[in-house]
């Protein structure tokens, strides 16, 4: 299944050079990139490929040397430094490898803290934070401090914080790196759910190959340039993640479904409603 939503994160001709002269390092080299609503884009690549630079530029934390970056249609490269915090708070949700929760704040407070004043006014903020934590399966942990949470729970609180202001774009940096395989998978599925059901664009930077499972697209970044941009989909029958290009496909009630082979396509055709709902 693929999504063809609006572009949330757009990068055109983005280059980032650190240093100058002989010491200059080209971390990103004229890259073009789109991430759309409803899709999970996984950016993979070796260490030093420019993944963190990509993420920080996308997150309005670092300015590119050249090129244009848009978030929800807003050209953030043209904006003044003092306006960027507002963009980060309103339009982008961050998920970090080491969770980065505030130690002295409870789960609920970590989520409500980042809410913009219009969202946190009165009890509205607390109610929304409770709803988010409830949705993330943490209703019993609202008053817990981070030190009393498991890694998976911490990451779910971090996801709640990322969603607090209902941003269009979620940027996740190695979100499963500090989690065991079970918790990591839970988080991956949660991110996919957020993208699909809440119509967010989720961009994940990761070394973890397991995360391909939830990816709509996988982008390979190396030496500051994209080597490949592979659109993926999940076979609704066998549940495997497959590359879209060249895969057998079937349209059902306006949505394209891709299959690992003709056998799965045939099985789908026998009862499309059952598999479409499951997918």
């Amino acid at each position: 299944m693929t999504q063809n939503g609006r572009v949330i994160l757009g990068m055109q001709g983005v280059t980032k050079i650190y240093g100058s002269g002989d010491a200059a390092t080209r971390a990103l080299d004229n890259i073009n990139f789109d991430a759309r609503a409803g899709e999970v884009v996984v950016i993979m690549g070796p260490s030093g490929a420019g993944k963190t630079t990509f993420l920080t530029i996308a997150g309005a934390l670092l300015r590119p040397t050249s090129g244009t970056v848009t978030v929800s249609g807003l050209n953030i490269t043209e904006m003044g430094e003092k306006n960027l915090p507002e963009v980060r708070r309103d339009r982008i949700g961050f998920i970090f490898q080491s969770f980065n929760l505030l130690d002295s704040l409870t789960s609920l407070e970590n989520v409500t803290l980042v809410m913009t004043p219009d969202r946190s006014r009165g009890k509205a903020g607390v109610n929304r934070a409770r709803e988010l934590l409830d949705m993330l399966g943490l209703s019993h942990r609202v008053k817990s401090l981070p030190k009393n949470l498991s890694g998976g729970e911490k990451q779910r609180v971090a996801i709640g914080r990322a969603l607090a202001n209902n941003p269009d774009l979620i940027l996740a940096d190695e979100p499963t790196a500090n989690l065991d395989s079970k918790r990591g998978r839970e988080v991956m599925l949660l991110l996919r759910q957020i993208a699909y059901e809440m119509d967010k664009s989720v961009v994940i930077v990761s070394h973890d190959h397991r995360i391909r499972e939830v990816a709509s697209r996988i982008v390979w970044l190396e030496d500051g340039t994209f080597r490949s941009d592979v659109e993926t989909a999940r076979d609704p029958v066998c549940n495997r993640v497959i590359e879209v290009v060249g895969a057998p496909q079937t349209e059902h009630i306006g949505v394209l479904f891709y299959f690992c082979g003709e056998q799965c396509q045939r099985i789908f055709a026998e009862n499309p409603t059952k598999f479409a709902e499951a997918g």
Partner: protein
Amino acid sequence: MLIVARKNLFSERTRLAISVGGIALAVFLIGVLLSLYRGWENKVGGFVEDSNVDVWIANEGAKDFLAAASLLPYDPSLGVDPCQQQIQAALQDPNRRSQAQKFPVQDIRECRPLIVRQMEGLKVEIQSGGEEKILKKMNLQFVGYDAGTQLGGPLRIVEGSTDAPKDNEVVVDEALGKRYGVQVGDTLKAGGRDWNVIAKSGGGDFVAAQTVFVSLDAAADALGFNDAKKTTFYVIRLKDGIDAKAFADGVDIPGVHALDRSAFASNTKDRILSNVLPILAVVLLLAFIVGLSVAGLTIYTATVEKSREYGILKAVGFRNSYLYRAVLEQSIVTGFLGFVIGIGLMLIIGPFAADVVPQFVIFTRWQDVLAVAGATLVMAGVAAYIPVRRLASIDPVAVFKA
């Protein structure tokens, strides 16, 4: 208060206690020193301010009550009212006489000599063999005053006889009783004579010395002033409606100084406090620096320790101004708690200390409490300012590193 500020502040109880303790100590010291200064100021100047003397006449250069250098001519044979006769007759120099025409005697209701001398006094006890045993040594502000007009005499009698002291009788200040255990009926040795304590008076404590009042004649006799035909001051009560300052300004006798009550009181305060003030200022500054250092260091280390969290806040979209506010609020709350504890300690410990050490005279004015609050606010503000550069330099990108 921002939740980040509140949680950061109260989650580290030990650090908070150190920080609050440092400020409380500084506030306590500043408060006590200010109150001590006010207490001394009140005590030292209080007697002159509350006295029934409108104008003080002294030798030129002797401008306050504690000035023992004042010696003016006084001939007891010319009678006790000296204004016209004594001053003019004593100033025999023809030039002085002509100048003395500028002494507006018509404005004077009463004028009397007043003998004042600082001296050591002894509290003695007569042993069974008739020998004297010295029980206490004390500094006295020995005052001989005219019993008829009471000019320059005790402000009020708090214990004992209300009659003016006669020969060998003395009225002692209550502070002398409190400090040295001098009671009505005791014997004091001063000026080579024994004095029988007949009463205690109030308002004559000069901290370093306390007033004792004897009759003018007895004082002159004891100090040999009759033979020398001298007095320390002339004290004047003016007729109703006469402005004391204008009168004092109108007196123009070479070698003689006239001061109205408030100027004389102010000079008396200055004599003691001008010496104390620089020391006090240094100690106040040190106390301020101690408070500032403790608050500054603890706020700074707390900021450094939480710099990753501040980086997270920056990354997720908080402005530097939010971080500054969080640090400032922590600092101000710390300052407020330190202020409350410091002032509380001062109010509790001050009276106890005053009981134990009589020289520990404190007087707390609300204006001074306000000043201490201001100093605390400055402490908190500066302490919060120290980590500002650190906050500004935190790179939010660093939070992406695991």
